[in-house]
């Protein structure tokens, strides 16, 4: 019993350390966004009452640093990526899970294999392809590129879920006279919301946070939020406080998403099976 208790304490301490490890940078981000530049850059940072300010946020929202347009672009690109990834991913995942496609397993592996190339390897060839297609500096171009690495993961998340649905459910629908499409639409989809949320939030976050492709494939018109934030670091000076404030603002939608759909996300990832 003593060992059990010791074990629990150990696990608790380990988890606490992990949470701290994860949250500390975010805490520091929030703190830096609320400090005057002088207080932030002095060593050690001056945390006295006089150092705190909301000025950074005012600057970011008022100034011409283009965070507003960037937020809009990011929202459109991320939502577009998410919706298309879910539409294509659910169909592909269902097909790979349920239909007996010749070589289906290999196709599924191939889909996953695309994840093995680091982005930096393909970014230059991709730039050439996209410029030939006239998709440089367009939202559509970004969506296409983001889909290329978001869709495979979405397919795999949803494939795993669809495989866990008892096949009897679809047999029952067939006996009741449902076509394949009606079975998918009226039986499979309505019980698939948790994994769809999980996959959707994943897709959204990936697209929202992406930096490398965005910095190479966009110019003026389609700056996304991470690009806009990076531009606070100028040639002659870096507005650290404003950069941090912008970063906090940019994180809010994702945090909100995670909080709102927390339950659905957890269920989507944890509970593969459907309980009848």
């Amino acid at each position: 019993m003593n060992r059990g208790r010791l074990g629990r304490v150990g696990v608790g301490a380990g988890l606490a350390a992990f949470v701290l490890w994860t949250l500390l940078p975010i805490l520091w981000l929030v703190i830096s966004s609320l400090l005057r530049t002088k207080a932030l850059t002095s060593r050690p940072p001056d945390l006295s009452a006089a150092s705190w300010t909301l000025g950074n946020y005012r600057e970011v929202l008022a100034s011409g640093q283009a965070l507003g347009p960037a937020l809009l672009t990011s929202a459109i690109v991320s939502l577009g990526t998410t919706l298309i990834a879910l539409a294509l991913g659910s169909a592909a995942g269902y097909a790979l899970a349920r239909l007996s496609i010749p070589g289906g397993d290999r196709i599924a592996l191939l889909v996953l294999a695309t994840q093995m190339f680091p982005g930096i390897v393909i970014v230059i060839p991709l730039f050439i392809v996209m410029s030939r297609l006239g998709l440089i500096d367009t939202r559509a171009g970004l969506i296409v590129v983001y889909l290329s690495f978001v869709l495979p993961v979405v397919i795999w998340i949803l494939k795993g879920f669809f495989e866990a649905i008892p096949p009897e459910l679809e047999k029952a629908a067939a006996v009741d006279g449902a076509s394949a499409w009606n079975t998918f639409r009226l039986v499979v989809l309505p019980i698939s919301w948790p994994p769809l949320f999980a996959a959707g939030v994943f897709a959204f976050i990936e697209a929202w946070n992406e930096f490398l492709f965005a910095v190479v494939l966009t110019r003026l018109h389609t700056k996304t939020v991470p690009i806009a934030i990076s531009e606070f670091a100028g040639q002659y000076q870096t507005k650290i406080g404003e950069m941090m404030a912008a970063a906090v603002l940019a994180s809010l939608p994702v945090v909100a998403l995670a909080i709102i759909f927390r339950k659905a996300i957890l269920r989507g990832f944890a509970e593969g099976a459907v309980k009848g």
Partner: protein
Amino acid sequence: MARVELSGVTKRYGGVEAVAGVDLAIADGEFLTLLGPSGCGKSTTLNLLAGLEDATAGDILFDGRRVNGLGPFQRDVAMVFQQYALYPHMTVAENIGFTLRLQKQPKSDIRRRVGEVAGLLELTPYLDRLPRELSGGQQQRVALGRAVIREPRVFLFDEPFSNLDASLRLRMREEVKVLHQRLGVTSIFVTHDQEEAMSLSDRIAVMRAGRIEQVATPAEIYAHPATQYVARFIGSPPMDMLSGVLASGPVFRAGALAFAMPERLADGAAGRDVVLGVRAEHVQVMPGGSDAVVRVTQPLGPFTNVTVDWEGGSLTARVPGMAVFSPGERVRVRLDPSGVRLFDRDSGRSIPG
């Protein structure tokens, strides 16, 4: 309602023959059970009948018309599954009425029909609940309701009660039987539970390795199993088997004991290696004597199963009343000649006589 025939029906998965040339005719309104252990091909046969899978070879006929290639809905069959397979996001009423909704029937009609079926199955108070809010027995009744509302030509049951506990299983068995008596729809029931098969069926088809070992009424299968395999599968306890020799007299020698045999068995079995099969109710154990020694007794209420050993053999007897014997006791053993069956030792087939 329909007459169902299978002729040479075969299903192969790659190199594996799950169903190997099954011939079977099921009469209009009959209740037939496919019985066998897991992997014997009974569920595959049912899926082939349902149209959920296509036969590799052979014909399936409903009322003389070939239905191969038709889906379950066109065949007009309804099916009840082991896992209930209720739609988890639909209420009881929506589950039962789903098939009518797919047929685009008017809402008022659907509501009326669902109401009738719910009344029949005593589900009326639960119509607005979700499946997960129901007990296992209620869920299985919803699954029945979903089948009944179709008014199909054939009911198919795929081990519908194996997820239920023992007492509920008895009640559901009764309900299915009453339902069949009332609706008279041709029913094909798959189970590995011999008691379920015995109590429900007009006829039982015992399956083994994709083939039908014997098709007969429960009484016939119980009294005259065609093979040792069937004999071991049916009855609780199953038929006891004794290896031995048939000698003139005729007597059957199993180790140190010899049992007088009826004349009818002498001819067919003369000179063959045989196995004697006998059910517990045809074995008599009496106090006094030195034939065998009691190993164990199992009192079951109205009777007690008494297992006895002797050199070279062992049998279980069903004795009326609660235990009257104790372990280690020496007893006399007699067989009721009318209940004795002989099987060929090599082929396992029954020797007629």
